[in-house]
């Protein structure tokens, strides 16, 4: 009897120890991951000498000069706010168009049988593995010839999303659609809905969680997109925030880091807010894309 409790106690202690080790690892690694971001936030409130004078986050002599300077233009037709407005002129239509075109495509593949479907689906899947890097230069040539480069409507960046060119999202929606039972489609059909009405009234509401994920990921990725604007926008007044941040870094490196970091931080605040409001959808979306495949 006494022996038994001793064993039990030993097991209990061992579990406590390994649980402690787990928390220690999680906290230390997490701290290392997050510290640079906190340091960045703190640094925007420091003066330029203080930023590189130690590891501390909280500024000793807090100042808003970084932010004040961030509001100023570097000269020319662009400033931080204009560039952020430009970003959303690109991001919002991209998100809407992607949702629209990816839903149609996923519906077509997920709910209908037609000649050549197997082949077309194989084509769709293979474009998942088609790296953008092969397409960049010929697309650049094509858009140059079409006169789309530097278009005030950002045609090369936006228009393509009307055509479900981002296969990953189509794939994610198809996967999700497959898990929705078909009984409701059939009920809608019996009630006299045509296929488009079924899509709007039955499928879209059921797809909603997946659509939210698609919208959120497209929002983040388009926000962060640097290569696209780099290739297709030449007029400074049309630059989005990513290009503006890059330019401000090139202009200021070495002397005005609080300004550069403030500009950078402001440019990612919308993404941060959206992420914290919709964390769960991000996690669900990213898991859905991989696991059901």
């Amino acid at each position, binding site marked *: 009897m006494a022996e038994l409790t001793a064993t039990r106690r030993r097991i209990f202690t061992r579990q406590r120890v390994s649980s402690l080790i*787990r928390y220690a*690892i*999680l906290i230390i*690694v*997490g701290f290392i*991951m997050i510290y640079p*971001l906190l340091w960045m936030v703190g640094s925007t409130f420091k003066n330029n000498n203080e*930023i*590189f*004078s*130690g*590891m501390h986050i909280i500024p000793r002599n807090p100042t808003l000069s970084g932010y004040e300077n961030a509001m100023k233009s570097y000269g020319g037709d662009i400033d931080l706010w204009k560039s952020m407005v430009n970003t959303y002129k690109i991001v919002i239509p991209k998100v809407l168009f992607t949702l629209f075109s990816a839903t*149609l*495509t996923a519906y*077509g*593949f997920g*709910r*209908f*049988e*037609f000649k050549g479907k197997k082949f077309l*689906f194989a*084509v*769709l*899947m293979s*474009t998942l593995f088609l*790296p953008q*890097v*092969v397409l*960049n*230069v*010929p697309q*650049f*040539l094509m858009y*140059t010839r079409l006169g789309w480069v530097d278009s005030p409507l950002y045609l090369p960046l936006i228009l393509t999303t*009307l*055509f*479900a*060119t981002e296969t990953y999202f189509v794939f994610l929606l198809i996967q999700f659609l497959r898990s929705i039972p078909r009984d409701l*489609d059939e009920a809608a059909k019996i009630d006299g809905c045509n296929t488009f009405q079924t899509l709007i009234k039955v499928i879209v509401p059921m797809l909603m969680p997946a659509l939210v994920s698609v919208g959120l990921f497209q929002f*983040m990725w388009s*926000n*962060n997109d*640097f*290569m696209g604007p780099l290739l297709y926008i030449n007029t400074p007044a049309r630059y989005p*925030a*990513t290009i503006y*941040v*890059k330019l401000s*870094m090139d202009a200021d490196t070495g002397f005005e880091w609080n300004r550069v*970091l403030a500009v*950078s931080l402001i*440019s*990612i605040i919308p993404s*941060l807010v959206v*992420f914290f409001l919709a*964390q769960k959808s991000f*996690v669900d979306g*990213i898991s859905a894309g991989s*696991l059901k*495949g």
Partner: protein
Amino acid sequence: MMSNNIASQQRLAQDLIRKPGRSRLESGRIGLVYILPWIIGFLFFKLYPFASSLYYSFTDMHLFNGISKTGLFNYVDVFTNRATVRSLETTFRYVITTVPLKLVAALFIAYILNFKIKGVNLFRTAYYVPSILGGSVAIAVLWRALFRNDGLINSLLSTLGVQGPSWLSDPNYALIIISLLRIWQFGSAMVIFLAALKGVPEELYEASTIDGAGKWRQFTKITLPLISPVIFYNLVTQTVQAFQEFNGPFIITKGGPLNSTRLITMIIYDQGIKNYKIGLSSAIAWVMFVIMMLLTLLAFWSQKRWVYYSDETQRGGL
């Protein structure tokens, strides 16, 4: 005896995961109407550029001067130009350091988070934030500040009494710093691993504990085989992504110092967009594409040996 047991448990898991049968799909051409936008997009924005770049790769296509000759000269150039060859090597080094470290970090943290951890959501968020922001230019700017001579990292080292190198201007370190930026973003791979780990039936662990299996044995004999499809998925997607890395070196180091971070995407950009040499840059892109395809095919071929699928229908197809 032990392995037998696991095999039967795996079959059990297989039955648990298997999906119910499907009812038949609606037929008719209407489906084609719905996918029409995608077909158009595929033909114009994917297939045409893809095919034309193959053609251009055998020409001296120039953005303004057009084509004056055709032949294999671009490909000869790719393999004889020292800058390009070196850049291919750099790209390989970059991929080989970034992908495994990122996946190991992701799996390790996911494994720990999969224990009954209090505040699992808080930790998951903390680990995931870098992945969400990491692609932004803002974070590349931050990286430059962190790894400056007098940046945060060297401040840390000097409090430990170590004189840190000048990370970004030393050809021995610059590439590692670029890799670190992506390794730091292991969160998205981690979230995927975590979801997969949660899908491993608890009974399997319980049964094997009764059989006397330790944690490590459980990990290698139960966990790894059952999540192998997800390991495979992460491996392929992360490798494809890593080969296409551009923003990091372009923004942080501009390819330097001494071209030590000039990845192949930067050469493609320089030749094609800045020097207008569409033909040459197409050839470089195609060499890279073929390498990536071969690696992907190799991965798909090798999955027979190590990837365990619980259900035939999960391999794709409709």
